[in-house]
């Protein structure tokens, strides 16, 4: 059942998929940029700024999806104790945080012409901001221990705690928003979205999805090397004589 839980085997599959992901992501990105920036019409109310949506919305979807993936990996690490899930979560965190950041910045830039100000405590933007804080917390905790192997379990636990809290945070932020802002400032495309716009959105979602996954695979390669490196250093210590071991212990303390 845990055939793919073997990190080396998983990595072999991932390495084989990497060029495909990069290629597909690149092609979709070109198509999406063409469709989004050139072929699709401007909105009659928002004019050209509607084109920000093709970057903003996919980034938002993927940032949330990546956090969910991180939590799944962390949960599998906590339950079955195989390290792959934890390594995947660690590899995904910076990519998800970058997407979250892109979503926030494009949201703010979009806000200027649409709302007249860069930042509004709109429910969607606010919950993305909190998601970014959760990403930061995870990355900080994962790297906060002098003995790096000690950070795995706390970080995994935090990812799971975070994913349990996200619905609560989202709900409370929306609740807060309905009380403080009586009118929604703008309605997103909704079901009546122009098919050209929908196509651009889907292409960009696919492009960013493949590219972000490719980036996560590259980072996973790094995380695996970290583990091997640590094991190799440990082996080096064991070959040394006992006195040197003690000295090493003292200097690391």
């Amino acid at each position, binding site marked *: 059942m845990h055939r793919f839980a073997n990190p080396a085997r998983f990595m072999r599959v991932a390495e084989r998929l990497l060029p495909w992901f990069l290629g597909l992501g690149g092609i979709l990105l070109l198509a999406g940029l063409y469709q989004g920036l050139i072929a699709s019409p401007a909105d009659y109310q928002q004019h050209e700024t509607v084109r920000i949506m093709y970057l903003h919305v996919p980034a938002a979807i993927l940032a949330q999806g990546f956090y969910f993936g991180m939590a799944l990996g962390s949960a599998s690490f906590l339950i079955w104790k195989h390290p792959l899930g934890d390594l995947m979560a660690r590899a995904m965190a910076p990519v998800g945080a970058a997407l979250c950041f892109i979503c926030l910045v494009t949201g703010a830039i979009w806000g200027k012409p649409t709302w007249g100000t860069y930042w509004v405590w709109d429910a969607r933007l606010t919950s993305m901001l909190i998601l970014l*804080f959760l990403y930061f917390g995870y990355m*900080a*905790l994962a790297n906060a221990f002098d003995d790096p192997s*000690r950070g795995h379990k706390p970080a995994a*636990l935090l990812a799971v*705690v975070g994913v349990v809290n996200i619905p609560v*945070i989202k709900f409370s932020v929306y609740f807060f928003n309905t*009380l403080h802002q009586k009118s929604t400032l703008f309605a997103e495309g909704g079901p009546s979205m122009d098919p050209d716009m929908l196509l651009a959105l889907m292409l960009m979602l696919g492009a960013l999805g493949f590219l972000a996954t490719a980036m996560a695979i590259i980072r996973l390669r790094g995380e695996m090397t970290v583990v091997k490196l640590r094991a190799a250093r440990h082996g080096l210590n064991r070959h040394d004589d006992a006195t040197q071991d003690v000295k090493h212990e003292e200097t690391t303390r």
Partner: protein
Amino acid sequence: MTGVFLTILKRDLLLTIRQSTDVALVMAFFVVAAALFPFGVGPGPETLGRIAPGIVWVLALLAVMLSLDRLFQQDWEDGALELITLTPAPLPILVLGKAAAHWIGTGLPLIALAPLLGIMLNLTETAYPILIAGLALGTPSLSLIGAVGAALTLGARRAGLLMALLVLPLYIPVLIFGVTAVDAAVAGFSVRPHFLYLGAILLASLALAPLAAAAAIRNAVE
């Protein structure tokens, strides 16, 4: 099981009393920080009155957060935590006892001081009972969620700062419902839904936070 809970509660309370300067410091922070706001936003009673519930709640959050290191840090350093985990009693119950002691040592004094802050910040009279009730319902959740953060950062570098980063985003729902309850009361709306949400958060954290904190403690003492 309640026996173990009461034992650990009594032990931690005794420790809190012996080190009562810790509690006094947190309370002093609460009051001094509140005294900064009139300087920051101007002494106009109307402005202060409007933002007073928010200030009290945010400062309560920060005060609880600053006192979280008391929960496990000392016991972890002197090895007591390791001994506690060796008892046959379920660890989540022990965590619950420690969180309860933390709330009595931090949450209750904060609630007692909240009216003073209300006077300092010109809080509307009708808002007092709701603010106090909201704090009474919300601060136990803060101690419980904080226990998870405190347990996760045991042994980490810069544990205090890290804890702030981990815990504050998770405190946001409590803050929102606590403040909107006061706003609703001042505006003449029903506070029931707000309190129900606060209660739901409390029940959920009562059930889940001890489990998460216990898992983190196990990892820390290994």
